[in-house]
């Protein structure tokens, strides 16, 4: 009855407040309040201790730590707080450990002790059946990088692992039966096999994201997973200075979504990607204006051909113009393998060379919807494309030109003509204009309407809302 009395007294006292009289939040049982508090940074959780007497010790029972290195005035306070916190309820289950460097510049100096501290803390939480371990550092000093203890490889409770700017050691054995999400951002590995074994050791892995670093000690990245659904690979930014080729090999029969953004990797080896639905492709097979495509390089031609065959179950694709260029150069030596399942394509051009597109479109025999965007990058003039004979586009129904060629109206007209003259079943072509060209819309539309259309029911629209 005490509790009810308390409630009544509380309700009377707060009679001058607007809204409800009842403090429902504090009325929740401890375990549910901890459930709520688990969603917010530890600093806010600790602040809740002053809300009222009921909240005084609750923060100690929240089964997780979410700290930014900038939360504390100095490093020693950070260490003593974490040690103190891990000392409460030291037998009970801890759900998450998250350390994040949220500041752009390091706020305090640390050396040897930091590496030892993080190792110690991770070992403690692994024993307490932690589910989420996120250690997101951002150190500029190569000598001071934190090394994750190898006990992480055999944690039976781990569900998600997110690491940035740390070192992963060579595993003796990997057994991670619950890990579903792995996110590795500029992480350094012991060697190729270490990373491969980490991936294969997760029997229910669903999502893998890797942002590469030029010093990550991985030359051949193998992703072999029977459960993987989503794979994101962002290549290193710096040029590959090594003699050895960089390779990425993917063997994932259940993979549905893949994002590849990498201009340094020489070859992508795809096998067993029968479930692929969506692909974002911005790769160049390490070809560039300096390292040009050589028609006599049979190995490179093999790589490109096998790659296109490997991804052929894809239905929906984003493609960058650098990739289109590599495929265009390839197409001048060999026929481009067909992408029979591709029905929706978005292409982003960093210049105005749309003539690379037709040969690719001709290898997509079931393409229904196409979106294009052009942006002129200032600087060197890329090699021009020879205009060739264009085939008909018998399945294309919708074309959107999202960001048009603002400097080159002639090229824009040629592009629109290509679609109107070659598409037999085109339903709608939409040209989106930049807001500053809005006034020209009626003039442009009039000009476009004079172009002969192969598909008589085709609608031509000039619009100013930019939605690609």
């Amino acid at each position: 009855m005490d509790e009810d009395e308390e409630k009544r007294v509380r309700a009377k006292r707060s009679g001058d407040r607007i809204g409800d009289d009842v403090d429902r939040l504090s009325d929740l049982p401890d375990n549910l309040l901890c459930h709520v508090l688990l969603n917010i940074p530890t600093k806010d959780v600790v602040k809740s201790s002053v809300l009222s007497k009921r909240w005084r010790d609750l923060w100690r029972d929240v089964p997780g730590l979410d700290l930014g290195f900038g939360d504390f005035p100095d490093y020693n306070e950070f260490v003593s707080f974490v040690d103190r916190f891990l000392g409460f309820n030291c037998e009970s289950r801890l759900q998450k450990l998250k350390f994040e460097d949220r500041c752009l510049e390091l706020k305090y100096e640390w050396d040897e002790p930091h590496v030892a501290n993080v190792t110690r803390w991770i070992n403690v939480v692994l024993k307490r059946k932690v589910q989420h371990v996120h250690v997101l550092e951002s150190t500029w000093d190569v000598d001071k990088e934190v090394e994750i203890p190898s006990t992480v490889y055999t944690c039976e409770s781990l569900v998600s692992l997110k690491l940035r700017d740390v070192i992963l050691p060579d595993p003796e054995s990997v057994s991670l039966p619950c890990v579903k999400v792995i996110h590795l951002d500029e992480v350094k590995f012991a060697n190729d096999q270490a990373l491969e074994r980490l991936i294969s050791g997760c029997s229910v892995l669903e999502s893998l994201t890797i942002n590469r670093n030029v010093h990550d000690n991985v030359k051949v990245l193998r992703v072999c997973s029977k459960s993987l659904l989503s794979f994101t690979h962002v290549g290193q930014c710096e040029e590959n200075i090594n003699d050895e080729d960089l390779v990425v090999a993917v063997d994932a029969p259940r993979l549905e979504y893949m994002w590849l953004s990498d201009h340094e990797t020489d070859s992508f080896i795809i096998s067993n990607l029968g479930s692929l639905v969506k692909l974002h492709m911005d790769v160049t097979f390490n070809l560039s204006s300096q390292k040009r495509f050589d028609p006599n390089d049979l190995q490179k031609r093999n790589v490109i051909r096998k790659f296109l065959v490997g991804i052929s179950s894809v239905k929906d694709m984003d493609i960058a113009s650098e990739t289109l260029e590599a495929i265009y150069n390839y197409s001048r030596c060999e026929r481009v393998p067909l992408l029979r399942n591709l029905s929706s394509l978005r292409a982003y051009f960093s210049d105005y060379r749309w003539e690379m597109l037709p040969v690719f479109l001709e290898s997509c025999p079931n393409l229904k919807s196409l979106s294009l965007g052009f942006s002129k990058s200032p600087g060197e003039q890329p090699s021009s494309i020879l205009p060739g004979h264009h085939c008909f586009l018998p399945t294309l129904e919708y074309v959107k030109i999202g960001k048009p060629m603002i400097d080159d109206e002639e090229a824009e007209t040629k592009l629109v003509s290509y679609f109107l003259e070659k598409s037999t079943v085109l339903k709608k072509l939409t040209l989106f204009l930049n807001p500053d060209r809005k006034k020209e819309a009626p003039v442009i539309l009039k000009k476009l309407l004079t172009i002969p259309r192969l598909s008589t029911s085709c609608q031509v629209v000039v619009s100013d809302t930019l939605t690609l």
Partner: protein
Amino acid sequence: AFVENIPEIYILSLLFFSPHFLYLLISVSVLTMDPIPGLSKLTVSSSKKIVLNCSDGKSFEIDEAVARKSKLIADMIESGCDGPIPLQNVTGKTLEKVIEYCKRHVVEFGPSDEDDEEAAEKLAIWDAEFIKVDEETIFHLILAANYLNIEGLLSLTCKTVADYIKDKTPEEVRQIFGIENDYTPEEEEAVRKENVWAFDPNQ
């Protein structure tokens, strides 16, 4: 899908007219013996209904698949509970909202036009709209989701409340939730001193 749609009468009439079609009938029945996992879920409609009785006398009849979103109810079904399930700790108004959530979150088998990513986005948008309710309802939903053991709903409701606490000062949180500060100034000062770092306005 071609196989299930052949009405039985055609097969029987074919059988009537030629012994060869007996072979076809046997092949047909073999084919319908669930060669593809999940296919049986398409053909056998889970139309079994579960009745839920609330604390204020209201009754709800829902599909078993929807009811099973609650681990509490799923366990009861597993241990043979056939009749109406009494839910003493949930009122009709709250249960109605809970059922709305469960219905939307039942995983549908079979092919769909949109891919997983699009479907997930749509679901997230629906969740955001669903949870736009008054304070009283959110807390009733937290308690109901906890009692009925519905992971997704508990997660959604707790996160929503947490967003009101995150990045706010204690004074602001007290204001939002109507929390009465029963510390004396000395007591509050002592609590702040235990974790000076958290209350430092410069950090």
